[in-house]
């Protein structure tokens, strides 16, 4: 079994990051398979064989979508950018640039917010009129 999905020593990575990396690898494999089936369908003349390949490619579409949804649920900024780009009419690059810019502003605010769920008020000492 290979462990190529890890770029850092696996023993140093938290469990959720290892899971994240596994799903990223799976997403990559599904998209690769979608591309392979696309090429095979382009050259295969036998209708029965084409039908099987098309069905198999549909499976890969489903797998890809499930992997992607999992990763987006675990990565709010990625999800926010995806929401600004996916299923939108119009210029894809423009949507991408706008979504990235907006998510950057939110990421800055998020970075200042503690991850314990608190409001992050803390000390206000010295603040007055």
């Amino acid at each position, binding site marked *: 079994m290979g462990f190529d999905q890890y770029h850092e020593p696996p023993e140093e990575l938290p469990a959720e990051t290892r899971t994240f990396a596994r799903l990223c690898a799976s997403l990559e494999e599904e998209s690769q398979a979608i591309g392979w089936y696309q090429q095979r369908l382009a050259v295969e003349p036998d209708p029965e064989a084409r039908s099987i390949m098309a069905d198999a490619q549909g499976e890969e579409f489903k797998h890809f979508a499930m992997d992607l949804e999992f990763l987006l649920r675990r990565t*709010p900024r990625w999800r926010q950018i995806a929401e600004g780009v996916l299923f939108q009419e119009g210029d894809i690059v423009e949507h991408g640039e706008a979504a990235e810019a907006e998510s950057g502003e939110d990421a800055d605010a998020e970075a200042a*917010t*503690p991850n*314990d*769920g*608190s*409001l*992050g*008020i*803390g*000390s*206000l*000492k*010295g*603040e*007055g*009129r």
Partner: protein
Amino acid sequence: MNHLLRGQAPLSDGNWKLLDGEARERLRGALAARRLVDFSGPHGWEHSATNLGRATPIGTAPCDGVVAAQRRVLPLAELRADFSVSLSELRDDDRGAPDADLEDLDRAARQIAIAENVAVFHGWEGAAIGGIAEASPIEPRPLGESGEDYPRSVARAVEALRERGVGGPYGLALGPDEHLHAIETAEHGGYPLMDHLAKILCDGPIVWAPGVRGAVVLSLRGGDFLFESGQDLSIGYSHHDGEAAHLYLEESFSFVVATPEAAAPLTS
């Protein structure tokens, strides 16, 4: 997900951003004690007690030849203020409505801020917290009937602190009525009273303090008044029904007056 169970609430990310932002804004304005005392933490919801550095002798030891003592700690107290938000208001917020009705959240934020201020300035017997004003050995003096009396009263309070070797800068917590008098008053010649008070306090802060009765002048040099936060103010999820999400504001903290003579109370 931690004990706040925020992930269980029927709220979108945008709804949470709205509620957290509103609560933060309301609380920051009303949390007077935090503007004037030392703040430690937050140390987390699991943090249960403040070390007082003291021990009480235990008369009976497990066997002869040893002496025994037990450490004294101050358990953290919890405050919680429930509130509800209409689900239809939250859906309207998702649609981009700029005027969501968060009145109940505002009420809860004000209540829990007042509770914290009262505990710090006037004490909370049930939680074994002594308040700054009540702990002070300095005899309370009247602040005065009108705003024009305030500079003399505050100057005397600052002088009382200096006489006890308590250095500045100094801060002033004013109850809501007293604060209103102060900002409304212009002294003879039109000089704003707040500017005059700030000079007396060596440019220390003057704080609107809902829950405070009268006023308190205290040193901000540090080490005198110790607020220890376990879980800092947070919004948690209780439950929901078909009409509303039932949430709450919550915090845990302790408060210790280390130098009672570092504050001078003024009565209204």
